[in-house]
């Protein structure tokens, strides 16, 4: 009987502690100092709980939150010593019932025994669907050597991260971008550098290892983009180098000393070339098929003597037609945005899958935005030709490497805004007019603990519409074997 009473009392006490929001001793008319800063963000209704803490340095020793709907009814109230962790089921139920609406978060923070209430902030729950999850690479934020790294998949509805590939399996080779076809994980291209270098290509469940060097193209296939039909993949072929700044404010410059574009047809192992995108006097890079597959967006700069002429190395946004039926490039290159004329270098074009926009990363010069603090995301409107800085999502630190969700309503991008070296993932919502909501940091169960202790950078993120199914043992076996399918120029 005594034990029974004790259990009831303990449960009641636990509920009281976890659910009660203390009354405030004073009120401040500013938003609460919380991290991650979720004030005013727009999130999908299936997103994992936006757990948060008070910011370090604010002197907090307790935090509480009360979440209300638009009618003012309290849906969840929680308190904790440091981190608010929403119960995942209640969180999802709350978001589901408030899809298309706003939720109000009233936060109070305890300091020296006194509670301070802050101005409530809103979180918009978008009705636009987001994909199942993300894929990304985790890599040490450093120079040119690659130690441990891996490609991971993250379910966006919870905090589960799954290893897709880990380079421990391949004697520490470098795993490059894992690129699926418009978020479909059943087709992807992945290049692995190192002793067992190969391009691992999976198409409709069939995997093969490619040696993509040919006499005509000279190097490995590097940055891929799938044709929407899946019959072609556009790649760049780059001669990439690194240099290091002696200047104490900068570290690295990654640049190409040659780069061309090709289109690869997996079915026949053919490489399709065009002199228009293999010019000796130009560096062509970052190909990306348009939504309907009839065009390839890419960037192009004048070939220069790099790194000597590094600061003059500016890329423009261009496009060239591609006839999928004939498997042929068009006969002219159009310059859509002239980078040098605007004093900027445009990189990594990513057309939205609805065919409305092309998002790019732009910086002062060069071809590798991540090492440029001034790098920002810009949006090119395919219909109107407008080209604008997406100020609503950019920061003072590098904002780059982005990808669209399959609905073209969400973008994921990397940014160093939180500590200027380690890139983290932010997700932003875009409305039908091309305006973006405030982006939010990829949620974690205990964000402060997770991100503070993480010694890796998030890199090359993309959405995935379903879990990635990869037989890693089979992939390893293929990679460690010497067998490689050769590609040949048509």
């Amino acid at each position, binding site marked *: 009987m005594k034990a029974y009473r004790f259990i009831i009392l303990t449960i009641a006490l636990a509920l009281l502690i976890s659910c009660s929001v203390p009354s405030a001793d004073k009120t401040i008319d500013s938003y609460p100092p919380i991290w991650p800063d979720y004030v005013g963000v727009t999130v999908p209704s299936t997103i994992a709980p936006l757990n948060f803490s008070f910011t370090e340095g604010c002197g907090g020793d307790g935090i509480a939150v009360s979440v209300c709907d638009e009618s003012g009814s309290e849906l969840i109230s929680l308190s904790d010593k440091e981190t608010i962790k929403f119960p995942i089921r209640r969180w999802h139920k709350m978001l589901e019932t408030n899809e298309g609406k706003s939720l109000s978060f009233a936060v109070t923070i305890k300091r020296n025994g006194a509670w301070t209430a802050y101005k409530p902030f809103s979180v918009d729950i978008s009705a636009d669907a987001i994909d199942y999850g993300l894929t990304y690479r985790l890599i040490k934020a450093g120079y040119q050597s690659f130690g441990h790294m891996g490609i991971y998949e993250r379910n966006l509805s919870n905090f589960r991260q799954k290893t897709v590939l880990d380079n421990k*399996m391949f004697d520490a080779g470098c795993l490059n971008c894992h690129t699926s076809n418009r978020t479909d994980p059943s087709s992807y291209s992945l290049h692995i550098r190192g002793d067992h270098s190969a391009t691992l290509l999976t198409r409709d469940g069939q995997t093969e290892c490619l040696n993509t060097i040919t006499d005509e193209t000279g190097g490995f296939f590097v940055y891929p983009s799938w044709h929407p039909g899946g019959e072609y993949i556009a790649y760049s072929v780059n001669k990439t180098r690194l240099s290091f700044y*002696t200047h104490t404010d900068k570290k690295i410059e990654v640049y190409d000393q040659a780069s061309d574009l090709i289109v690869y047809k997996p079915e026949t192992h053919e490489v399709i070339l065009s002199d228009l995108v293999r010019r000796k006097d130009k560096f062509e890079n970052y190909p990306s098929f348009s939504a309907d597959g009839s065009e390839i967006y890419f960037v192009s700069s004048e070939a220069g003597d790099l790194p000597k002429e590094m600061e003059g190395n500016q890329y423009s946004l261009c496009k060239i037609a591609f006839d999928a039926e004939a498997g042929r490039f068009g006969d002219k290159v159009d310059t859509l945005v002239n980078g040098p004329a605007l004093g900027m270098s445009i990189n990594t074009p990513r057309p939205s899958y609805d065919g409305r926009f092309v998002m790019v990363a732009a910086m002062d010069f060069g071809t590798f935005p991540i090492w440029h603090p001034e790098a920002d995301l810009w949006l090119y409107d395919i219909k109107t030709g407008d080209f604008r800085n997406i100020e609503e999502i950019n920061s003072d630190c590098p904002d780059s490497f982005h990808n669209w969700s399959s609905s073209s309503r969400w973008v994921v991008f990397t940014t160093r805004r939180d500590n200027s070296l380690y890139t983290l993932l932010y997700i932003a919502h875009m409305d039908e007019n091309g305006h973006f909501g405030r982006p939010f940091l990829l949620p974690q169960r205990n964000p402060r603990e997770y991100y503070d202790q*993480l010694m890796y950078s998030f890199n090359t993120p993309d959405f995935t519409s379903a879990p990635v199914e990869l037989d*890693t*043992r089979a992939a390893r076996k293929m990679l460690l074997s010497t067998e490689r399918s050769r590609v040949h120029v048509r």
Partner: protein
Amino acid sequence: MKKLFTLLFALVVFLFWMFVLPYHVLYQEEIQIFPYTWPHLKQCLAFPGGVASYLGEFFVQFFHVAWLGALLLSVLTALAQVQSWRVISSVKANADIVWYPLSFIPAVCFWAFLCGAGNLVSALVAFLLICETAVIVCKSKRDRLWLPAIALAYYLAGPMAFILVVVAFADIFAESSAKRSAKVLYTTLIILTCVLVAGLSVIIFTQYPVKSLLCGVEYSHIPGQYTASFWTAVFSLPAVLLVSLLPVGKPLRNKTRISVLVAVSVVISLASYAYVKKHCSKDMERIYAYDYLAAGRQWDKILAMAEKKTPKTPSEVICLNLALVMKGESGDRLFEFYQAGIPGLFPNYDTYVFLKFTGSEALYQAGLLNMALHYSFEAYQTFPGGRESARHIKRMAEVNMIKGAEDVAEKYLKVLSHTLFYRKWAKKYLQDQSLMLEDAEYSRLVGCRNSDPDIFDDMYDYPKQAILRSQVSKSGKPDESFRYLLAYDLLAKDVESLASDIKLAKIDGPVPELYQEALLVPWITAGGNADYDRDFVSDKVLTKAQAFLKDLQTGRTTSYMKGHYGKTFWFYYASK
């Protein structure tokens, strides 16, 4: 009697680590980090053997203090002996004392194994966990417990659980009262358990190569690389156990037993001495010592070591030159020691990992901050096994603080603030990074922040001489950067640059002799018929130069010249 043997053994092991390989112990701590955080524990719990790895790392954090590390190693090694005996006596009830010396063999094998640079204490911890599991199951007298015990031991300690399988077989077959059918049944079930555990492990832990899952993920810094000393350590207990189970015929008489015991003890002691000696590298110990002392700014100790035995390896030479520069003696004593050109001052980029560790210290003290960061990062990034290193995280925190990259420094400081031995230091700067200006070294290096136009490297290496020159031009001080610049000129035999670089800062007191000697090289080359800078050259050095020139012109032998001028710049300049 047994306890005395064990205590004596522990003492010998302690003295060994304390006085023979103390820097090896310290090095083990430097190349790992043990944060008291949930993510770190979770990471360790996520692979077979992770618990042993976690405990191993826990012990190694105390290696920050050499005597504590030696003490822990001696306790763990002695425990390996005690546990080995407990296993033997559990399997063979009332085991004869004559077998007792054999129980030292596994402990000695692990002792020798731990002398290897990349070998981890977690292997020894795994062994202890397995022995304890074996003893518990043996004492329970329930053969069915072997099945879950093998699975549990595999998870806790990794594939070394194989030892448990051998112990299980030995225990089952040593039990004379058990039925034959029961023995066959349990043997079959144990084999099936092993297959099941191995199969499940391969299916579950897909991110690890099968070889690592079956041979050990975290027994060595280089996963998948297992040395002979590893296999010897792993097979030692099964071998000893099987030997102890051999039928010995009639029980030995007391007198004979004592004779056998003494004989076996002497043989094992001698063999252990030879085996451990074979695995103990004094050369590596010296390299670790130089590196550790350089990282700890113990310049006098470095010079004292070098005076006893001239360093010859690149890593040692870099530390020696660093000490000479820091003590302000590079201008006088550089050629008292063996020199290896510029790589003896700063290592080339495309060098092996350890040299980058050491090189980072020299670059840091010379004020080449971006390079120091680069070398340190690359060393730690490319370190086999991809482990984090407390020393290098600290270095990255330091350099970023000095550079003014406060948010990046904060990232590293936060990581260090979760450790035992770096917490105090990290918390101090987490509270206020500007406190670094109160530190003489940090404050000096803040002056080396380079805001001049960028100097690009062609590929991997840096134009070190040009950056040093730019720093010295800016500061105008005869500080460490200045001494490094002139040492660079000397080692590069770049007399022309030295003649102009020496004017970049005002030297306090007399000009060091090696600089004077370098300034007189054109005069010597011209047979004494050229001008030289009289502001810098003293009469004493000029007189010595005249004697050198005379000896040179009279065709003195190389050995004569080396005997008389071996410590001068002229001899270094003339040598290939």
